[in-house]
């Protein structure tokens, strides 16, 4: 299903635009992501970071522009279910299925979308739940877990679909400070294992130390796109400088 011989950028966003009514939130966004890239997207509140991720996996319908996954048009050449299985998403508010156990949360998509057998799906789920350290809680329901635990389950649920790309929208912003570390730890491991990741984050340490690239967004446009070393030591755009000095002095 996924094309292993494909060598171009795994994800390409071209001239993406999104308006809510008269409000243009994304103004002509273009960038591409290579396989194995870990891209952090930073920028001030309201700059359109979430909207960008939501357009990439069509939770919002883009107003204009194209998205290519493995060189094929995501909207027209990929069956929607296939595309979603390949490009997963982790939400700020976890969004676990509250009527299911931890294990069922991680098998549901595999069974319904990838048509895996229950047994196969459970093996896969257990493997990833182990990876995020949640094996002891497979029978628990989301309401019985802490925020950090919920987010680790949500990551396992996304991983169980064997995605090529994982999108994270501020995965640690809804967590108490002492739980941020456990989730960032899991994300670090994923980055090390070579997973392609797009991470909207306010965790500057993560952006600086883990990502291979940092995209800075301001008012619906990408104003800077460079390796972290460059952005953090020598930001070119005045808006980037201003933003970084504001968040780093805290």
């Amino acid at each position, binding site marked *: 299903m996924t094309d292993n011989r494909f060598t171009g950028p795994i994800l390409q966003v071209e001239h993406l635009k999104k308006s809510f009514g008269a409000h243009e939130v994304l103004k002509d966004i273009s960038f591409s992501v290579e396989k194995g890239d870990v891209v952090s997207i930073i920028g001030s509140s309201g700059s359109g970071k979430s909207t960008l991720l939501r357009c990439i996996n069509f939770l919002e319908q883009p107003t204009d522009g194209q998205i290519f996954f493995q060189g094929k048009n995501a909207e027209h050449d990929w069956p929607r279910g296939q595309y979603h*299985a390949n490009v997963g998403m982790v*939400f700020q508010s976890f*969004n676990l299925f509250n*009527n299911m156990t931890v294990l069922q949360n991680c098998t549901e*998509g595999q069974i319904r979308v990838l048509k895996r057998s229950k047994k196969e799906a459970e093996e896969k789920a257990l493997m990833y739940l182990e990876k995020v350290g949640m*094996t002891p809680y497979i*029978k*628990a329901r989301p309401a*019985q877990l802490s925020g950090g635990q919920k987010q680790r389950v949500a990551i396992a*649920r996304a991983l169980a679909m064997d995605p090529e790309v994982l999108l994270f929208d501020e995965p640690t912003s809804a967590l108490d400070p002492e739980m941020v570390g456990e989730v960032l730890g899991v994300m670090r491991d994923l980055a090390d294992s070579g997973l392609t990741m797009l991470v909207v984050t306010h965790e500057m340490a993560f952006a600086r130390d883990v990502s291979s690239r940092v995209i800075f967004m301001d008012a619906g446009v990408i104003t800077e796109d460079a390796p972290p070393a460059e952005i953090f030591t020598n930001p070119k755009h005045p808006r980037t400088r201003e933003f970084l000095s504001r968040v780093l002095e805290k």
Partner: protein
Amino acid sequence: MNLPKTFFGWVGLLIEQYGTMFLRGTGYTLIIALSGTVIGFVIGLLVAILKTIPVVPKDGWLKKIGLKVLNVILNVYVEVFRGTPMIVQSMVIYYGSMSMGIRMPVLFAAILIVSINTGAYMAEIIRGGIISVDKGQKEAATAIGMTHWQSMVRVVLPQAVRNIMPSIGNEFVVNIKDSSVLNVISVNELYFTGKSAAGTYYRYFEAFFIIACIYLVLTFTITRLLRLLEKKMDGSANYTIYGSQSDSKASIKLPREGDVPLD
């Protein structure tokens, strides 16, 4: 024949003479209320699902117009049946179909009327239930590739239905009581049997005292049963921590070849 002189004397006599008829009436009332509630629930579910089908820009015009028209029809249905009394609906449906040459058996007509009426209320109740499930879970289901139908059936509706269980139970209780209006089309439900029994000796107070008691027993019992069902739906408040030291039964067991799958 010696006629009784006291209230309870009359009650005794009426029960003795019409007991089996009251029981049959109770049976009819239960059948009408239960089938009406269940069928009404299914109608409400369909209406609510049809009304929440999302339209995306790449859908064809046929689907868009079709959904618009369907929406209008469903809205009219809900408004009409919530906006008129069931006793009037009974007359219109029963005698209306008769004037068109359709002679429905009364029990069938009764269930039909209660179902359609309940469906209109259920549609709104279920829509409220769907809204009560936070949008994020639907989005998460979409984000792992589940279709609208799959995410509704597997994620949203189970939670919606749990949240509205008290209202569904309430509809059932209301139907037990309100099916009494169906006596206008001469269904042998509980109220109708009360009327028949009272008429023989003109003992309305005693007859309807008995009928009132039966209604009360029915609604009281059903309310308790539904509470129990709700408790059961919530499941256990605890869970086993696998690999926990303090619980010897709990151990992490990865499934192996030939194992029965975990639930």
